[in-house]
């Protein structure tokens, strides 16, 4: 096929946009392993900064992983059954519940954090523990789990599957655990990836909710950007990318199961409404 000049103009523009997205990432990775970034790569490659970051900030990484996994557990327990109920009994009440669950995405994290602090700040044990951060992460990520599972449930004919199982004598829990859950798997996977990714990177809420003893990875990043030399900040960012990018790649691959199902049956797709900023 002959390519018109317009094609190359558009290609050049798109490559320029890609450069805008990827060049700073590459630069920060390079800076994280360069002995002296100001002098350039010529000053030699080193893992010194990464080692230093590990010494300074390993605690924040550990806490972030713990919170992300706890958040995943909480959103699975709370979100998956709720999505099932919303799909099973559509109607005004279901619509209202869904609106309520999704509302935290529409409110800036800073506002939610101020609400949490002014409501629970007096409960010192809670305020000072990482559970306080977890509470914020759960309300912020729960909608993504519910939406992902709900989208898959609406795209498959789970009612017929359930009726089939019921006619064979399966009770409620047998149907829920043995028929509904296995069929939701793509949605559960997409929702889980989203929840873990968002929790690991959450800053807007976490910056307000953290204490000196409950610093998460993004809080540590902000800290290093403000007070450390560029190489250390870059090495820390590099460590963050090593954790986050595999999740993002998996998310690109498995993040929209409903869209794939939609090609067979036309049901609305889910595009994540907001990611943290």
């Amino acid at each position, binding site marked *: 096929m002959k390519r018109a000049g317009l094609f190359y103009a*558009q*290609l050049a*523009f*798109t490559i320029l*946009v*890609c450069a805008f*997205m990827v060049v*700073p*990432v590459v*630069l920060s990775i390079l*800076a994280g392993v360069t002995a002296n970034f100001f002098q350039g790569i010529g000053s030699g490659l080193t893992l010194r900064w990464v080692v230093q970051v590990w010494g300074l900030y390993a605690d924040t990484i550990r806490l972030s992983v713990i919170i992300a996994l706890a958040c995943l557990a909480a959103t699975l*327990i*709370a979100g998956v*059954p*709720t999505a099932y*109920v919303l799909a099973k*009994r559509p109607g005004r009440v279901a619509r209202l*519940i869904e609106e*309520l*669950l999704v509302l*935290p995405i*529409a*409110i*800036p*994290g*800073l*506002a939610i954090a*101020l*609400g*949490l602090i*002014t409501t*629970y700040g007096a409960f010192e044990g809670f305020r000072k523990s990482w559970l306080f951060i977890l509470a914020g992460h*759960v*309300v912020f990520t*729960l909608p993504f789990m519910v*939406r992902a599972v709900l989208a898959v449930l609406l795209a498959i004919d789970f009612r017929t599957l359930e009726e089939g199982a019921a006619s064979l004598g399966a009770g409620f829990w047998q149907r829920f655990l043995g028929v509904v859950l296995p069929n939701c798997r793509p949605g559960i996977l997409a929702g889980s990836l989203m929840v873990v*990714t968002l929790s690991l*990177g959450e*800053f*807007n809420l976490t*910056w*307000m909710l953290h204490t000196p003893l409950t610093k998460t990875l*993004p809080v540590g*990043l*902000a800290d290093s950007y403000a007070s450390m030399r*560029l190489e250390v900040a870059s090495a820390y*960012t590099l460590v963050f990318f090593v954790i986050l*990018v595999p999740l993002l*790649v998996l*998310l*690109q691959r498995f993040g929209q199961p409903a869209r794939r199902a939609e090609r067979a049956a036309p*049901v*609305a797709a889910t*595009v*994540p*409404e*907001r*990611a*943290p*900023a």
Partner: protein
Amino acid sequence: MAAPRRHPRSEAPLLAALTLPALAAVVAFFVLPMIRLVMLGAAGPEGLGAYAAALTTPRYVESLAATILLSAGVTLVTLAIAAASGLFLERNRFRGRQVLIAILTLPLAFPGVVIGFMVIMLAGRQGLIGSISAALTGQKIVFAYSAAGLFMGYVYFSIPRVILTIMAAAEKLDRALEEAARSLGASNWQVVRDVVLPALRPALIASGAICFATAMGAFGTAFTLATNIDVLAMTIYTEFTLQANFAMAAALSIVLGAITWVALTVARSLTGATVAAAG
């Protein structure tokens, strides 16, 4: 809608119970805190006047106006970039296309703080743009810590999610309409203006509103860049932590939350049910 089905009555309480963990979490950690915040906003020395003050005191009005202006500008620029690249990538098949799509959508979940650092890598004191300009002209261009830097950061984090929405919408366009317009003698530009863009309108409005709301509420990027323009999120943060003016911080948060919520709701009602389901 599905045909009426028999609902075994005994299942209703069980189904209600299944939603309890989610409802409890949202009520305890979102609804109650937001109610508390609304009340706190009205509990200061000015009472309900705190909300009026949030909308009339010059310092807050300036911050609000600057944030709205910045967010609107970011939205327009992002829509233009994402529409151009998104349409191109959806319509052409060539080697390396998947790589370009992956690059454009990968930063989808980069936190704001990290994006602030990306801006520093590009336009900061040791940034790429500064070194290039210094080598070429002897003049070191540094704009990471100004409004331009913040603008660049917001466009950076908006591109991935807008481009995803536009590509999904472009995939569903009816190519026959374009062929018809072309056979009637329409130029490339006319086809884009009169056929493609109107068809993409719902996606543009929806993703534009999401982009606007996200930029309004964004905090991490401005925090990292310690920008010299006071976006609303930074003003709220300063009121709360440095001035200890809790009532005003609460009132401003409620105003900000109301704006982002209205933007998303209006977009949803304008774009109809399919986008409502898509969110």
